[in-house]
């Protein structure tokens, strides 16, 4: 096992890399042409962030393509399969609200992540707005869309506790405050959309979590197999 860097750039870079990959799976499958453009925009922003963050931690391609599953530090939320459009939107809402709060905080500190955070917080605000608007449309749209959106929010809820597990190297982040603010924002977005804040636990014995320690969910291995296969098939090649 090669040692991997312990900088916080790695977990945050992995979050962006993996979510970008999932969004990339939508290409050609979006419900409306405008969403092909919007989802690709978000995926590209995240990939751009991932490349900067992974480069702070080491060689971006080595880190993306040559690590084993147990060495990825992303939260489990971002690796969850796309599901229907409502699941993708729920995942976006939960994650972008978190990421905006985190980057907002990091942008005001003085760390190696500050420049990236300052730039990315604007992108993330757009991602959050996109997710919020769709949550509103789907929640307060038709009966079917309401049901689907609620189901998606419920299904992904157990992955949200992990977002606020402290990240090594980000000791100054007030995680509990972020968590409270996140809950307030999500509650307000869901209420506006006539949706219900899920009741299930976010933390506990068998809620999800552990991504930051390299423990992932079953679909993640398959995601990596697809992402890494070509690169790994040609050791040492340049692309």
């Amino acid at each position: 096992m090669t040692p991997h860097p312990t900088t916080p750039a790695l977990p945050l870079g992995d979050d962006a890399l993996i979510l970008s990959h999932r969004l990339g799976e939508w290409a050609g499958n979006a419900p409306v042409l405008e969403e092909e453009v919007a989802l690709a925009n978000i995926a590209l922003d995240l990939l751009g962030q991932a490349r900067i963050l992974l480069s702070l931690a080491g060689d971006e391609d080595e880190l993306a393509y040559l690590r084993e599953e147990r060495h990825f530090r992303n939260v489990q939320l971002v690796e969850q399969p796309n599901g229907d459009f409502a699941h993708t939107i729920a995942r976006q809402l939960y994650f972008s609200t978190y990421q905006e709060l985190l980057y907002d905080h990091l942008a005001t500190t003085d760390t190696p992540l500050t420049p990236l955070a300052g730039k990315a917080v604007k992108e993330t605000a757009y991602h959050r707005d996109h997710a919020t608007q769709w949550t509103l449309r789907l929640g307060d749209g038709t009966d079917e869309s309401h049901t689907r959106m609620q189901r998606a929010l419920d299904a992904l809820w157990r992955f949200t506790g992990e977002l606020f597990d402290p990240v090594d190297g980000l000791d100054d982040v007030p995680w509990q405050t972020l968590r409270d603010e996140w809950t307030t924002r999500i509650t307000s977005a869901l209420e506006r959309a006539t949706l219900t804040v899920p009741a299930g636990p976010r933390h506990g014995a068998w809620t999800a979590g552990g991504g930051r320690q390299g423990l992932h969910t079953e679909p993640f291995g398959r995601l990596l197999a697809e992402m890494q296969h070509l690169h790994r098939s040609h050791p040492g090649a340049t692309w």
Partner: protein
Amino acid sequence: MTTIAPEDTGQEALFDATIAADERIEPRDWMPDDYRASLVRQIAQHAHSEIIGMQPEANWITRAPSLRRKAILMAKVQDEAGHGLYLYSAAETLGTGRDELLDKLHTGRQKYSSIFNYPTLTWADVGAIGWLVDGAAITNQVPLCRCSYGPYARAMVRICKEESFHQRQGYELLLTLSRGTETQHAMAQDAIDRWWWPSLMMFGPPDDESAHSAQSMAWKIKRHSNDELRQRFVDICVPQAETLGLTLPDPDLRWNEERGHWDFGPIDWTEFREVLKGNGPCNDERIGRRRRAHQEGAWVREAAAAHAAKHPAHPPHAGTDQEEAAR
């Protein structure tokens, strides 16, 4: 769209004069029904090609072998979606909406470029598509920037700029492979072997068999014949292939001093017609996937429309577009 009898108004003379003077016809101008229909058909086919064309390349997004290439490919596929948007809007200025055109695509009543019915089997195919398919598209489309219909011509200016990026990126991808390991070089050569002839077919049937060409030329929708454009493309590609260190799969390719052009071998028009008829390697998959995405997205579009109807005064916000989302 009702058309006032031209002889009563002198509108037809005005239309003819505008065309003759090489000026632009705009959406509110009178135009012959056939001109309108011909444009709608061409713009729709072009728009459909952009969105179907996303599929063979999206096939490689999740497997792109470096993060830099992944970003380039994602951005390219996104550009194609954007091209689809501009073109459906251009068709809309002629009175035909996107929903109607998509329905015609999904039910097989309108076509898209046959090139996208070929599969992308290896990573090198992404490069081959960029270099050859986007390259052929540019050769076809640059003259359309001077098309007599204003909105189409303007859309093409924007599109051509992006297509030329795509072409250069594809070329650069192939160059990297060609100069890479032996396996990578072979991968690039194999892709060129498979994509060369289909990309020559992108210019359409030979001039003497082209159904719509003559009238389109008279209306200045089209400026050059299929065969002229095909020749221009071959002349551009031959030296580029040489720089790439790759061989074009045509034993008859040779410089013709007299013509000042490259001679090339006969094109297999039977293959072209078969693919056009629906018997290509991926016709069913491409249209099937498009239909599936549309059907699976129906509830989303319905929700957006229902939401917009419930909240007509909902303030618009930056970034997304209420109306567009409601389509």
